[in-house]
């Protein structure tokens, strides 16, 4: 141990005290600047981790979920009259037919020219929270179809009325034209079609939930 002398005694102790503080601050600021400029070591970009197969072609023999995420109708029906007698918008519902069979029917969306469906629905009761196991299959409300060469699906859209349902349009869609993810299909107004466009979503059956989430965005 040394004894302090006039020579060793700090001349300006507060100035000396600042040295470690300045070093700490200096390196902290330097790191922050480097991190912001060059995305240097540090912040992870925590986006979706899965490799999104968005836009990929359908694979033969594979099963897929298929649902319409959005359907838009023309302002008038097939007879060029107002929907629902002009008071309200149409109550839109659609069906998917595959190989001549109805494989899915959507819920009805009231009074809208643009209806959307999330493709998800859960009927949960409080008791379910105590340990019921729910799989993605149970929650995804969509048709299940298999892609085969030359395969097609039919989408029937109707205005659901109390008295009589009015057909809004019927589209035959070749499966080879569909891609994974969102497919927007526009239609002309004709005497047999009042559907302006259908957004179809195709999701691979049995995929990791993360990939399904990416495709639903």
């Amino acid at each position, binding site marked *: *141990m*040394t*004894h*302090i002398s006039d020579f*060793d*005694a*700090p001349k300006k*102790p507060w100035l*000396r*005290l600042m*040295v*470690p*503080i300045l*070093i*700490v*601050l*200096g*390196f*902290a*600021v*330097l*790191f*922050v600047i480097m*991190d912001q400029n060059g995305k240097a*070591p*540090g*912040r*992870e970009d*925590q986006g979706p981790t899965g490799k999104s197969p968005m836009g990929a072609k359908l694979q033969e023999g594979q099963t897929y979920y298929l649902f319409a995420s959005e359907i838009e109708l023309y302002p008038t029906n097939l007879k060029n009259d107002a929907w629902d007698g002009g008071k309200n918008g149409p109550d839109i519902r659609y069906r998917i037919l595959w190989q001549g069979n109805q494989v899915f029917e959507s819920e009805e969306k009231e009074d809208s020219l643009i209806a959307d469906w999330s493709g*998800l629905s*859960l009927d949960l009761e409080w008791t379910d929270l105590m*340990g019921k*196991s*729910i799989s*993605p299959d149970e*929650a995804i409300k969509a048709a299940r179809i298999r892609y085969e060469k030359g395969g097609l699906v039919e989408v029937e859209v109707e205005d659901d009325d109390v008295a009589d349902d009015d057909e809004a349009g019927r589209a035959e869609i070749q499966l080879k034209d569909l891609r994974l993810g969102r497919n927007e299909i526009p239609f002309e107004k004709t005497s047999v079609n009042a559907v302006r466009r259908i957004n179809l979503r195709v999701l691979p059956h049995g995929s990791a*939930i*993360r990939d*399904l*989430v990416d495709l*639903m965005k």
Partner: protein
Amino acid sequence: MSRIHLLILLSSALLGVGLVAPTLTIRPQAGEFSWLVEILAPEELVPSTYSIVGVIRELYLIGDVFLAGVLGLFSIVFPVFKLCLYWLGTDRSGSLISSGSLYEWTTRASKFSMAEVFVLALVILSVKALPGGSSATMEWGAYVFVGSALGAMLIPTLARKNEP
């Protein structure tokens, strides 16, 4: 400049980086319903990476001023104060200056040499115990911070060795 002073400067530099570098990544999960939350509110399950300063800031913003204060005190104020004390309390040869109160303070500070690491470990342990399968992993910033604390721990020992 003595080896002790170099060690103090190195510890200060490591502390500066350790405070702002990524230290903790929390990956939230909601147990059995994780996949559902992932669909309905994916933002709730996005992993977050925090630095020590970031953790203190988050704690302060959510109103936990006490915990923010404790963490700030033990991970920023105390280590910086300790390094300043060592810088001031060593002479040119790297020996401890035996000027009454300064020597006492330096000795006292050295007794709490790993307090900051202990507090950091407590935070990580408490987060690791989160329900629903949430997990917390240490990032490289934590090791830099521990490196700074270890360096600071060595300073009084080496300084005493330098004493004639």
